[in-house]
C-alpha cells in the first residue's frame, strides 16, 4: 500500500470543512454511565458506536475450547463497553463459528450488529455461502453483508440487493484492504447503491483520504475501517515511544486510543474494527469511543508526530 508522508492540503481542508457538517458530527449515547460516541449510518440514520470488533486471525481458533472461551470473554467485554458491530468473513477460517459460539455464551446480546461478507466464486454460489455463514453466527439475518475484496462483485451485489429487498439483510456493501483496487471501488461507489464501504485507513495509510472518503460522504455511504493497527504492527512500533503529553488533550490514555481516535475522528468514518484476543485490549480500544476526538489541526499534529517516530 502506498504510504503518504504528509497530510495533504486537500484532505486537511476536507476534514476542516467536514468538521462543521452537523449530520456526521459524533453523537454520544450512554454506555455504563459514560457517553459513547456514535455515528449515523448515512443511508438510514441508525447510529453505531465508532469502535467495533474485527475477527481476522484473532477469532480463528478452531475447536480449541479454551481459546473459544477467551474470545467469548472479549465479546463480553466489548458489549459491556457499549460495542455493537462485529465483522467477519468466510475467509477467516473458524472465526464465524467462534463468533456464533460467543454469542451463544452471551445469550445472544440484542445489541450485536452482525457484519459479514460473501467471498466465493462463481457468484452463483453466494447465496449458499451466506446461508452457511448465517447458521455459523446463529443470527436470524445479518445486519450487513459485504462483498469481500470485490470477488465476483457484480453477481454478489445482485444477490445482496435482492436479499435486502426481501428483508433478509439490512445493509449491503463492498470491502477492500491495504489499498487494493481503489479505482474499481470508486467506480462501484459511483454506480451502485451501497450502504457501506470497508477500507484500510490508519495514521500512516491515508490514501483513502484523497478520493474514497470524500466520495463516501458525497454518496451517503458509511465507511468501516479495517487494519487500524496494521495487524498490530503500529501498536508494536509506537510502544517503543512514550505517548505524547498532548494526547491527554483528546483523552487518550494509550497508543491504541491515539491511533483509533485519529481514524474515527475523520467525518466520513462510521466505525473502525480493531481485532484482539485480549479483554484488556478490547477495553482500551473501546476507550477510543469516549470523550474528546481530535479536530483537524490535532489530526495533522498526530500524523506529523507518528511519521517522525
Amino acid at each position: 500500500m502506498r504510504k503518504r508522508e504528509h497530510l495533504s492540503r486537500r484532505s486537511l481542508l476536507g476534514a476542516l470543512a467536514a468538521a462543521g457538517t452537523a449530520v456526521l458530527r459524533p453523537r454520544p449515547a450512554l454506555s455504563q454511565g459514560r457517553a459513547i460516541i456514535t455515528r449515523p449510518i448515512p443511508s438510514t440514520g441508525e447510529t453505531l458506536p465508532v469502535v467495533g470488533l474485527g475477527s481476522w486471525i484473532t477469532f480463528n481458533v478452531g475447536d480449541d475450547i479454551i481459546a473459544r472461551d477467551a474470545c467469548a470473554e472479549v465479546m463480553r467485554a466489548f458489549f459491556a463497553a457499549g460495542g455493537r458491530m462485529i465483522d467477519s468473513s468466510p475467509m477467516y477460517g473458524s472465526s464465524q463459528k467462534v463468533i456464533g459460539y460467543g454469542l451463544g455464551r452471551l445469550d445472544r446480546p440484542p445489541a450485536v450488529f452482525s457484519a459479514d461478507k460473501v467471498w466465493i466464486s462463481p457468484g452463483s454460489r453466494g447465496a449458499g455461502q451466506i446461508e452457511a455463514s448465517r447458521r455459523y453466527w446463529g443470527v436470524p439475518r445479518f445486519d450487513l453483508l459485504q462483498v469481500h475484496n470485490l470477488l465476483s462483485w457484480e453477481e454478489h451485489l445482485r444477490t445482496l440487493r435482492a436479499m435486502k429487498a426481501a428483508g433478509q439483510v439490512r445493509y449491503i456493501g463492498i470491502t477492500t484492504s491495504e489499498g487494493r483496487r481503489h479505482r474499481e471501488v470508486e467506480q462501484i461507489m459511483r454506480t451502485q447503491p451501497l450502504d457501506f464501504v470497508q477500507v484500510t485507513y490508519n495514521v500512516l495509510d491515508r490514501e483513502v483520504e484523497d478520493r474514497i472518503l470524500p466520495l463516501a460522504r458525497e454518496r451517503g455511504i458509511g465507511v468501516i475501517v479495517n487494519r487500524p493497527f496494521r495487524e498490530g504492527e503500529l501498536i508494536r512500533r509506537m510502544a517503543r515511544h512514550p505517548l505524547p503529553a498532548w494526547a491527554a488533550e483528546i483523552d487518550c490514555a494509550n497508543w491504541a486510543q491515539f491511533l483509533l481516535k485519529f481514524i474515527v475522528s475523520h467525518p466520513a468514518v462510521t466505525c473502525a474494527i480493531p481485532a484482539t484476543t485480549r479483554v484488556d485490549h478490547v477495553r482500551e480500544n473501546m476507550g477510543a469511543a469516549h470523550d474528546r476526538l481530535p479536530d483537524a489541526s490535532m489530526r495533522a499534529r498526530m500524523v506529523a508526530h507518528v511519521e517522525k517516530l
Partner: protein
Amino acid sequence: MSEWWTYSLSDFLLFSPRIYYRLFELYNAAIWPLQILALALGAAIFGLLLSGVIWRGRAIAAMLAACWLWVGWAYLLQRYDTINWAASYFAAGFAAEAMLMSWIGIIRDRLGFRSGADAAGAAGRCIFLFALVVFPLIGPLAGRPWTQVEVFGVAPDPTAIATLGVLAAAHRPHWPLLVIPLVWSTISGATLWTMQSPDAMVVPMAAALALVVAGWKALAWARQASREGT
C-alpha cells in the same frame, strides 16, 4: 485473485502462532499414545533401511503410505482444517502421496535400496534419522512445550522429511514421489517463516538437502546408464 502481486505471505496467514501450536497440543492429547506406535514404525523403517531383506522396499512403502494417509486424515482434515480452509487441499495431496507410494513401492515394487557403502544412501538415512529423532526436539529447544511436540508418522513436517530421507536413500531417484513432500516442505516453511518461528528454515533446508542427494543420485544413475549404453 486479481492484483496478486500486491499480496504478501502474511496476507495468507489466517491464524496466530499460539493457535497453530495449540493445535498440535490438542491433537497430541487426543491421539496419545499413537505417537509411541508411530515412533516404533519409524524405528522399524530405519532398521529395514539398514537390513538387506528382499521385501524391505514394499514394507517401507506400506508403512510410509499408512503414515501419509493418517496425517492427511487425522491431522490435516480433522484438525488443521478448522483454522485453515486450504487444509482439505493439503489432505488431498497427502492422500495422493499415499496412493503413489502404494503404487510405486508396493504394487510395482520399485522402491529398492542398495546395500553396503553408498554415500547418497547414508545421507538419506541421516535425513530420515533426523526426522525421527532430532525433529521432535526442535520445538522444545525453541521454547515450545513438550505437549506440542511434532512426531514422525502423526505430524506432517517430520513425516515429509522422513519420506524425503527414504527417497534419497533409495538406489534410484523417484521424482513423482518427491514432488508432494517437497511442495509440503515449501508450504510449511513459508507458514512458519510468516509466523516468525525460529525454526522456520529447518524443514525447507532438510528438504533441499534431500533434493540435492536425489539430484546427485540421478546424475550418477544417468552416467551409469550412459556407460552401459556405450
